[in-house]
Structures are given as structure tokens and as C-alpha cells.
């Protein structure tokens, strides 16, 4: 069923508010063709490469695995499968360092490659455009595909729009606005037909009815390639290609939506609120491989760049997921003595790596091996002069310097009022700050503080509620017991109306009881007498009071004796 294929190209009329133009430095890596990275000796496959729950290993140590074989299963609603990216033996399942800003180790599966790279039999889906969206989504889910643009959200869940809200348009993000990165650029030049197919499959899987592609005007070859295949290919959906001006951060999901549709994703909302869904070029390609070839996500295109790499080595590589970065950099003959900063991701939003033994993961779109002269260390932070350059470049129209002041003052209320949580951490403000203030770091800190504070408030509220409920429960139980006791007492007193009257000694006529009372009184008196004698012997203390008391006890004992004898006599 071939739909009427329409393809239009336009230049974006929409402009981003703010935005910056950092040096692009893309020519470092976009000259060379896409190359294959070698199969590493060992693979390190982390189980939490995606957002959501950690996957659960389904292989055991020592087990032989084939390329493409599933080795860990998704757990819970938002999670992703992990597959072996070459054949070999499982060496270990345990905690290893991974590339993450936290530097915390995580559970990884280590596979010793056997060098044969033998794959399992892949099961492609025949005639996918006549399959149900569910079938396609299942294939995407099985293949362990996550958003390859950087966030790593499981694609099958994202595409399952029945779970959220129906979408009408799928946006393909080919903007790639970060400096240095050219992975999408090169992929589009060499694999544009596959990417367009993958994009249409995503469209089918999500129930969308049209496609919009956004790309920056600094990628003329990729634009030409896209145009060519869009006119040549059979399109199942109307496609609109929009060339947007080169400006950072136009590739941010929210910014791209604004550029292509003129709409804004509501605060705290999702693109699906507007009937839109945004996917990355890399994800579209992975979907094509998963559905048309049946191959799970085991490789990705990564830009390896930076001046610490020899010029001929810089470029884009198809890297197996799990390849240790040290192996990769060694193969490329990195000038280790010049390597000063190793960044995963782009220079604006990427993070620095500490440990070279960490692997390339599904979200690794770029590695920058930078020298000191290339990315010099920032100058010391000066005071904010409120110049407002940050506010001019903020793509979210925030007031970054106000956020900075309120962060320093820990004024959480004012931070929320100034929409701190609409900050996308693009770094444009810090890029232009003349006082070298690491603004984004301040905002990350403030967000963390506020989240923690909110979590603590929620926790203490819950604790208070629990405590109040417990107190009420105890009170209730006590009251109930009291009521039962009162009822019981009433019942007993109803049965023995005279019981109360007999409690006083004077009215007891039972000689046995009187005898006991007498004996008890006598004992008390005699004990007191003994105590008096002891204290008179051992200390010169005043004993007159004690003597008076003993007299009283003696009288009491004698009274009891008289009563007893009377009772004996009367009986």
C-alpha cells in the first residue's frame, strides 16, 4: 500500500530565542568516510545503558554466546535488553567502572571475544509496513533499542503512544548542533535510505501520519543525500525536510519542536502533549536494522575526534557496544602525552571521563580526545556583573543570572519562581559568561538540592502521617479496651450488688479474715519496733516520730486482735 509520497523542503522561518555560535570544529571528523572499529579482545556490557530499570543478566559465567544473542533482559516497564556484540565466552558478571558522571561502578557482563564474530540467526520482519504497530514495537523492544541521541530512553516505550497520547507527526532530529559531533552527518550521507526507512517504521510503530525532518544548514552533503533519497524512495508518509539555521542548541528536542512547528512543549509536559514524537537519526537507523535485518542494537556510529588523535584517525566509526575506550584509542594511536581531557558527548553537554577502561555504550555518540590548547582549562571564576549575556543566549528565555544569585542564596522558592526546572542545561549561558562562572554547575546543584529537599519533605510528611495514624490507632484501641473493661465491671457489679460494701475491715465478720488482718498489723508493728531498736543502737538520729508511729501501729494491731476475738466469740 503505497501512500501518496510528498516531500517538501523549506528553510525554517522560525528563530530560536537566544542560542550561540560556538566554533563548530566538525571538519576534524566529517571528511573521512565511515569506518569499522576492530573487534575488541574483551567486551564490557553495562546493564544500565538506558534510562529506567537495570536489565537482568540471563547468561552465566563461562557460557558461550554468539553475536546478537540476548545476554540481559529488560526489567520492569521502562528498561532495555542487552545483546552480545560479538561471539565469545562470558568471563564475569560483576561491578565494573562505566562512563557516567557519577563515576560509580555498575553491573557489567564481560565477554571474552573468540575472534570469530559468529552471529545468531536473525529474524527480520517481512513486509513490515503491513504489520501492526504492536509487532514493530515488539521488534524494537526485543532489539534493545534506546534513544541514541544521548538520553537513552527505551524507544519501544517512547513509541508506544497508546500508553500516553496519540501522535500525528514524527520528528526526525538530524540537527546535530553540538560542535565536533558528526555521527549523524556521516550516517545521513552514507545510509540515508536506511534512515528514511527506519524513520517511516518508527512512524508506523507510533501511529503517526506524517514526518518532519530537521537538519542544520552546515551539513550540505547530508541535506543533498537526504533530498536525493527522499525523491527516489517510495514514501509511505508525507515527509517535510526543514533546513534550520546553524545555531546551538537547535538540536534540543524542545528547540527542534519550536523550530519545525512553532509550538512549545508545555512546561512539565512531553512532546506527545502536542501530538509529536521526536527520534534521532541513529535511532531510526537502529530501528531499520532491527526490523528489516532482525539485528539487535550491537553497534553504533561514534565520532572519534579531538586533536590528541592523529589527523588521519579522526572520523566516524561503527563501534561495537561494549568496546573499551582504551582499546579504541590505542588502535587509533592516540598521542597519550597530549591527551588532557577526554569527553564523552559534545563539548557543550558532554562529561569528562576519568577511567579509560570504561566501554562505549549505546548512547556514546562522540568521544573527544582534547589537548590542553584545544579546550583550555577555564579561567578562575569572577563575580557576576549582571551583564545579561546569559539571558540573551538562553534558549528557554530564563534569567540565568537571577538563577545564579538565587542558587548562591539557596532561595529555593525564588528558583522555582524563575523556572529553574525549565533549564535544559545546554550550557549557552556559561559559554558566554565573561566572568567564567560555571553557571550550569550551579543549576545542577540547585536542582539536586531542591529535589532532595522535596524528597525529604515528602518523606517527613509521610512519617508524620504514619505517626499520626499510629497514635490515633493506639488511642482507639485504648478507648475500646476501657469501654470493654467498664462494661465488664458493670456486669460484675450488677451480679454482686453487696461486694463493695464488704471491703472495709470493720464490717468483716469472717474470723479467718480478721485473724489475717491482725497478724498482718502485728507484723508491721513488730517490724517497726525492730527498726526503731536498730536505729537507736546505730545512730543518734531523732527517733521520736518513729516511736509515735509505732504506738499507732501497736494500737491498730490491738484493735484488730480485739475484733478477731469478738468475732471468734460471737461465732
Amino acid at each position, binding site marked *: 500500500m503505497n501512500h501518496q509520497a510528498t516531500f517538501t523542503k523549506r528553510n525554517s522561518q522560525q528563530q530560536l530565542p537566544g542560542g550561540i555560535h560556538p566554533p563548530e570544529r566538525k571538519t576534524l571528523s566529517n571528511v573521512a568516510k565511515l569506518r569499522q572499529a576492530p573487534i575488541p579482545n574483551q567486551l564490557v556490557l553495562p546493564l544500565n545503558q538506558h534510562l529506567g530499570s537495570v536489565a537482568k543478566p540471563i547468561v552465566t559465567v563461562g557460557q558461550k554466546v554468539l553475536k546478537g544473542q540476548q545476554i540481559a533482559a529488560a526489567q520492569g516497564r521502562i528498561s532495555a535488553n542487552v545483546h552480545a556484540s560479538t561471539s565469545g565466552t562470558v568471563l564475569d558478571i560483576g561491578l565494573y567502572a562505566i562512563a557516567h558522571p557519577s563515576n560509580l561502578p555498575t553491573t557489567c557482563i564481560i565477554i571474552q571475544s573468540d575472534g570469530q564474530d559468529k552471529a545468531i540467526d536473525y529474524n527480520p520482519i517481512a513486509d513490515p509496513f503491513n504489520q501492526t504497530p504492536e509487532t514493530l514495537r515488539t521488534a524494537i523492544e526485543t532489539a534493545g533499542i534506546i534513544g541514541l541521541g544521548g538520553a537513552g530512553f527505551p524507544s519501544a516505550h517512547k513509541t508506544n503512544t497508546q500508553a500516553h497520547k496519540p501522535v500525528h507527526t514524527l520528528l526526525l532530529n538530524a540537527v546535530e548542533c553540538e560542535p565536533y559531533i558528526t555521527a549523524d552527518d556521516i550516517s545521513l550521507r552514507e545510509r540515508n535510505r536506511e534512515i528514511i526507512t527506519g524513520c517511516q517504521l518508527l512512524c508506523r510503530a507510533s501511529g503517526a501520519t506524517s514526518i518532519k525532518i530537521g537538519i542544520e544548514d552546515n551539513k550540505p552533503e547530508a541535506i543533498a543525500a537526504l533530498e536525493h533519497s527522499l525523491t527516489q524512495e517510495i514514501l509511505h508518509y508525507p515527509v517535510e525536510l526543514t533546513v534550520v539555521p546553524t545555531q546551538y542548541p537547535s538540536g534540543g528536542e524542545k528547540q527542534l519542536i519550536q523550530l519545525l512547528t512553532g509550538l512549545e512543549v508545555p512546561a512539565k509536559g512531553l512532546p506527545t502533549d502536542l501530538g509529536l514524537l521526536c527520534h534521532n537519526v541513529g535511532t531510526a537507523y537502529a530501528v531499520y536494522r532491527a526490523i528489516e535485518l532482525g539485528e539487535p542494537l550491537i553497534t553504533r556510529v561514534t565520532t572519534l575526534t579531538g586533536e590528541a588523535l592523529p589527523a588521519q584517525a579522526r572520523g566516524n566509526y561503527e563501534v561495537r557496544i561494549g568496546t573499551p575506550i582504551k582499546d579504541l584509542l590505542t588502535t587509533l594511536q592516540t598521542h597519550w602525552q597530549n591527551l*588532557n581531557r577526554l569527553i564523552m558527548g559534545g563539548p557543550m553537554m558532554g562529561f*569528562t571521563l576519568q577511567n579509560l577502561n570504561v566501554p562505549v555504550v549505546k548512547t556514546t555518540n562522540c568521544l573527544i580526545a582534547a589537548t590542553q590548547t584545544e579546550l583550555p582549562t577555564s579561567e578562575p571564576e569572577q563575580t557576576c556583573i*549582571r*551583564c545579561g549575556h546569559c539571558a540573551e543566549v538562553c534558549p528557554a528565555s530564563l*534569567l540565568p543570572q537571577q538563577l545564579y544569585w538565587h542558587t548562591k542564596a539557596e532561595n529555593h522558592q525564588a528558583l522555582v519562581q524563575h523556572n529553574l526546572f525549565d533549564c535544559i542545561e545546554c550550557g549557552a549561558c556559561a559559554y558566554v559568561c*565573561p566572568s567564567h562562572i560555571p553557571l*550550569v554547575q550551579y543549576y545542577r546543584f540547585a536542582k539536586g538540592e531542591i529535589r532532595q529537599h522535596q524528597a525529604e519533605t515528602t518523606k517527613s510528611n509521610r512519617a508524620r502521617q504514619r505517626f499520626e495514624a499510629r497514635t490515633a490507632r493506639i488511642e482507639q484501641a485504648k478507648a475500646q479496651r476501657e469501654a470493654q473493661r467498664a462494661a465488664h465491671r458493670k456486669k460484675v457489679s450488677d451480679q454482686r450488688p453487696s461486694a463493695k460494701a464488704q471491703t472495709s475491715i470493720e464490717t468483716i465478720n469472717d474470723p479467718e479474715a480478721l485473724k489475717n488482718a491482725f497478724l498482718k498489723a502485728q507484723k508491721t508493728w513488730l517490724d517497726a519496733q525492730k527498726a526503731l531498736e536498730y536505729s537507736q543502737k546505730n545512730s543518734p538520729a531523732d527517733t521520736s516520730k518513729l516511736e509515735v508511729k509505732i504506738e499507732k501501729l501497736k494500737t491498730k494491731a490491738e484493735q484488730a486482735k480485739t475484733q478477731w476475738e469478738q468475732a471468734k466469740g460471737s461465732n
Partner: protein
Amino acid sequence: MPLMQLTSPHTKNNVSTQKMMLEVIGATLLGAGILTYHFGWGILINVLWASLVALGCEALVLKIRRKPISFYLRDGSALVTALLLALAIPPTAPWWLTLVGTAFAIIIAKQLYGGLGYNPFNPAMAGYALLLISYPVEMTSWLPPRSIAEHTQAHSLQGALQLFWSGAISTQTGLKTVDAFTSATTLDTLKTARTLSLTLEEATAQNPVLGSLSGWMVAPGWFWSNLAFLTGGLYLLKRKHITWHIPLSFLSALTVTASIAYYFKPTLGSPIFHLFSGATMLCAFFIATDPVSAATSQQGKLIYGTGIGLLTYIIRTFGGYPDAVAFAVLLLNLAAPTIDYYTQPRSYGHKKAKKGLHSL
């Protein structure tokens, strides 16, 4: 070699506070030169002396505050303050006048509040206001422009140095004090003429200082220096060190009010007269745009600039002082935080802007 551990972004443009301040200083040089040409070496002497005093005071306070002295001195902000203040001080000012003003600006108005970035008031204008209130005579007597001056000894380097040092110039006829050379500024002259109910023609005839530029009546020295500051300001705009919001709203507000008033009462001065007299252009591009003490959101800057423009005209016309820029700026400095609270921009994804602090 251990790898550098830093948070994003890893790259930075090459603008720095120091470069910005230096460019601001550079942009005033043309105006300062024109002022020196018309009003003598006293202008330059003031600038140099104020810069020395400012650096000295800044270093002193930094030492007391136990802050790294050279790190903070290098940001150039003390020099900018000194420069702006010195350009507003008459060329005949004795050394102690500049000293008092600059020391107050740096020590009290800037450093006591916490230094650069923390001062609620524009330090140069705070210093200027202090001097104007305390020494009105010294502060309001300017030299007439060289072209129309009767005596030009005070314009020469030697004369200016003597005035600077001792407040008098030795001539063949004996010592002459400042009064012998100075006259009122154009703004002041116009005000006096108005109090005397002179027509514009009479006022111009009596006081050549008022000058005339094809009938618009602008004093030559003031006109050219204002034009020079306008040029410097446009350079700063082009270099994106300032935005258009404050200068444009300030100049517009001044022009509109002056035009309306001029239409009804020509002796109040034409809009061109107001735009090119006194410190108008210096204020529009260099003083009101001081980011630390100004409003920061775009809408806020428009309100801020308009406020300064209106107040400048009102104080110039109805107040007791000849120029009003300093007071107008200080009053709006006071209002800037409130303006900011009520002019937050609408952020992405929000239906409308949040205003004030109570809309949580």
C-alpha cells in the same frame, strides 16, 4: 598524565570581564579626547588622577578584605568607575575634589557593598552626587569651550596643572583663581536665562557658551563630545557589550518629553539641545548601561531607561541642579530589583510570564 575532570560546557567564548571593561574604556577615549580638545588638559589630568586614586583605594580595601589584589584589580572595573566620574568632573577641579569623589565611589559605593557585582548604585554616579551636593560651586563651574573662551590659560597643560594643584594660575597680573576662567555650563546658562525670563535670542546673545548649530542652539564643545560618546556607544552596541534597550529607551524618553515641552515653551530647550548637552550620551551608553546596577531583563531595561530619561528631563528642568543624569540614574538603581521582579520574561513552555514574587 591524569585526565582533566571538569563539568560541561567544556568550551567558552573569549569574552571576559576584563576585555569588556577595557573596550568600554576604549570606547570613551574619543569622547574624552574631544572634551580635552574643547575644555583643556584639565579633563585628562582628572582622568589620570581619578584612575590612580581608584586603583589605590581598590587595592587598599582588597587588602583589608584579604582578597587577591591583582586578580580583582585586573578586572578593570575600578578604572571604568574612575573614568566615568572624572569625565563628569569639571576640568578646573582641584586634586582633592577628584580624590574625595573617587574614594567615595570606590570605597563606600562599591567595596563596602561587596565589590564588583554587588553594588546597588552606580559607583561613579554615587561619587558624582556626593560631590555635587557637597561642593556645588566647584562642581558647576566649567571652562567655556576653547573656541569662545576669553582667556585660554586654563586650557593649557601648565595652567591646568596649576589649577589642579593650587586652584589658581599665576599670570602677569598676579594669581588668578578658578573663577576668572570659568562660566556656567550650557544647561545651567539656559536655566538662568529662563529664570531671568530672557528669550532664546537674548540668552544666546549674552552667553556665547550656549552656541548655535544651524538654529538648534547647541554649544559647540558639548555637541561634539556628545557626538563622540554616541559613536563610542554605537561601537559598544556593535560589539554586543551593551544592548540597545537602555540607550534607546533613555534617549527616546528624553526626546519625547523635551519635544512636547519645547512645543509649548521653547525656552525649555530643544530636544536636540537636550540630547547633545551635558552628560546625555555618556549616560545613555556608558552610565545607565552599567549592568551591575541596572535592570536585567529586556522589558526591565526598557522601563529602566525610560525612567532615567523622564527623570533626567524633569530634574534638569525643574530641579535645582544643572544636570540630572546622576540623580536620575541613582533613583532608578534603587528601583532596578523591583523592576526585575515584575519583568521576568515568559519562559519556554509557559503560557505567560511569572510576575512578582507572589504568583507561586
